[in-house]
């Protein structure tokens, strides 16, 4: 049965653009059902702001089913808020109580420049994928899908890391602003599969080096795993490092063959 929360204070980061100073702004939600999602609460706030002639709070969101990876809120200092394995859009008000003060901020990482209010630019993730996060298989020439049996455990393990939604919580949670969990997840997905073997070493080299251009370095804090809404294991980083180290030898050897 639904209950109502009363007197929620939202401390929300407002910043008109990347080059101007931002500040926290307080807004009080008098009453809200605990069935509402966190983002529905922001919808209600925005409707009220527009009604009062004020500018609505800008925030990224879309599917509201925890799968598109668009929403990106730092809630009380935790990426996507207090509930483990949950995106901000799937966080519901039943996780909070009356009279709470909730601080809402954007992802803060130098690789994710701020656009406005709670919205940041995560294009650097796309640059990593563009540099090698794929299997080269042009449309049209694929062999029969059952030609290569893939052991169930391998397919399942690949799927575990393929579940990454690219939201950036790992980067936001990392004290160094590193993207190792994101990059490692894609490498673990593709490098585990037989289809991914041909480009295994060139992939990891290209992706890690692009990652290093944009993001900070990993120092094994493990905050990324704790923040990941898909609970992707930090093991993928070890796998990435192992393949990267091998790539540095293997690629050099292959390229110097003749």
């Amino acid at each position, binding site marked *: 049965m639904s209950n109502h929360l009363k007197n929620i204070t939202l401390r929300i980061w407002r910043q008109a653009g990347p080059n101007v100073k931002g500040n926290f702004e307080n807004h009080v939600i008098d009453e809200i059902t605990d069935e509402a999602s966190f983002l529905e609460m922001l919808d209600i706030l925005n409707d009220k702001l527009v009604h009062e002639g004020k500018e609505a709070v800008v925030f990224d969101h879309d599917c509201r089913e925890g*799968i598109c990876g668009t929403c990106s809120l730092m809630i009380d200092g935790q990426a996507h808020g207090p509930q483990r394995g949950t995106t901000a859009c799937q966080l519901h008000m039943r996780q909070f109580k009356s009279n709470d003060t909730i601080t809402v901020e954007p992802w803060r990482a130098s690789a994710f420049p701020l656009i406005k209010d709670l919205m940041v630019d995560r294009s650097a993730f796309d640059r990593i994928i563009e540099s090698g996060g794929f299997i080269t298989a042009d449309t049209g020439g694929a062999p029969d899908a059952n030609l290569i049996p893939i052991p169930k455990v391998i397919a399942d393990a690949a799927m575990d890391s393929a579940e990454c939604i690219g939201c950036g919580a790992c980067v936001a949670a990392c004290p160094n602003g590193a993207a190792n969990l994101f990059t490692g997840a894609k490498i673990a997905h593709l490098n585990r599969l037989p289809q991914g073997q041909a480009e295994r070493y060139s992939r990891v080299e290209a992706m890690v080096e692009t990652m290093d251009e944009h993001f900070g370095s990993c120092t094994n804090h493990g905050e990324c795993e704790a923040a990941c809404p898909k609970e992707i294991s930090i093991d993928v980083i070890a796998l990435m490092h192992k393949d990267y180290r091998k790539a540095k030898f293997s690629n050099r050897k292959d390229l110097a063959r003749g």
Partner: protein
Amino acid sequence: MSLTDNLLAKNTVQLDSKIPAGPMADKWNSYKDNMKLVNPNNKRKFKVIVVGTGLAGASAAATLAELGYQVDAFTFHDSARRAHSIAAQGGINGAKNYKGDGDSIHRLFYDTVKGGDFRAREANVHRLAENSIDIIDQMVAQGVPFAREYGGLLDNRSFGGAQVSRTFYARGQTGQQLLLGAYQQFSRQVGLGGIRLFNRTELIDIVVIDGHASGIVVRDLVTGELQSHAAHAVVLATGGYGNAFFLSTNAMACNVTAAWRAHRKGALFANPCYTQIHPTCIPQSDDSQSKLTLMSESLRNDGRVWVPTNPDETRPAHEVPENERDYYLERLYPSFGNLAPRDISSRAAKRLVDKGLGVGPKKNGVYLDFAEAIQRLGREVVEERYGNLFQMYERIAGENPYEQPMRIYPASHYTMGGLWVDYELMTNIPGLYAAGEANFSDHGANRLGASALMQGLSDGYFVLPYTIGNYLAPMLNKAIPGTDHPEFKAAEEAARLRFNGYLAAGGTKSPDFFHRELGKIIWDYCGMERTEQGLEKALSEIPALYEEFKKDLRVTGTGESMNQTLEKAGRVDDFFQLGMLMCHDALDRKESCGGHFRAEYQTDDGEALRDDDNYCHVSAWEWGGDPMKPNLNVEKLEFEEVHLATRSYK
């Protein structure tokens, strides 16, 4: 005036579906054998614009770039990976017959035509079934981690409306994995320079010069700047219009603007009243809710749908004895049971809830119960099959579906209607294509489960790359209009006026307020059940609300930086105009078929009653300058392979 008079009076556009001659099974091959080709070295001389980066858009853009065309791709998202294809859960059909259970291209074709209640174009559907096989191969090659058996071969399951197991899946995230596969292929081309990506950029208008699609006008959502882009051909892969209902399972940003702006420039909009109401969504919990969530139809493989027989039942579900439960789908449709198609299952649920038999605090749902499956298979197997869906349900509803049944209710989910396209997926504007959910072509009046992903990828990977070449070949070395052409300037100016107008409206209510009100009207009168009286009421209420929208809209902020309120205003404006067309179409179609259920036209036991003598056609509407005055055009549907029959799942 009889319908036929009506049609003859209004057929204003010559519609040529360009279906190739020959036997059904040979049409697509014969098309490919005879189409014009562009030499590999000449492909780079052509620019193609692709709007939208979901399954259809990403796969088309990637493939066109691989072939050598210059591709400019546009998405209003921050990244090409976000499109709502990502939220599809259950799976993708492929007529592989890997299970040896009697599947074939013909059977998938037949099921799709029948599932669409005989309102789809046969030749397109046959091609879709043929391509379904290549899609599975292509996606596996891209590294999509489909579910596998212990021996390493691909696993399949069955899905609503089918009696064979032909659905490939990746846990409950098939759409995500397919989209990421296409996105990765797309990204490779971005990295190689084959695709120029414009993210956070929304289409505002289509530019048509001398009768040909010549480019688009877009708005940079970060800076508010309007820009023109010229090209040899334009592909709209911009999704469906389910958000016309406000509450739907679509993502928040899904909108009809691209298709609608094309419609206003002359592209016909086909069958707008064919909307799919999905039976298994989480019921609305309160009035401030802004979005509904789908629970994959695959759950119906193991879940049993029921309501208590006593409308005043107050006991928790597990205390209701078997003989006081009505497993109504199993009772009404014994051969398909809980796997009856979406339109049929949705209406059955609505009827029971309307009778007061609903469950949950608002009595607005039915049970989807896994107790029996957990007993039969063990919790572990159920968790492996549906774990992420159960978790999602628990997050949203605050109830544990391993212990108590899910509550579900139908919600707007997919739109079968869309831009009219011919066999080449070209609209009636030469050079303007529509792919995926944005077109109308393959699902008739009702889409079967696991067919949307299939259609998006078929259009993008295996249809457009051929048919666009056929259009471009004769244009080699001929100049096309640049963005300095007066038509581009005029479209930019119109867009500027439009957005300044929203900002200057100076009223008191937000775009969301109007969207919610509009959605309520459309849901009440043009939703799961429609009547002449209701539709006429909607057609008086929508224009009245639209007038209020124009006068009393309030958009705060400016047009020079990220302003989501302003974006929303433009989208809601277009939903108003589309809403009127949906109602006109539903009013004109005096029969029931698939997702279009007119209460006046039903059988004695409440099933849809088609009128093949008068309505075996596509209704393709032309913009008439006023959203209340659309012009109707018809394309007759001929059925050569599948004989028109009453659709029965009993």
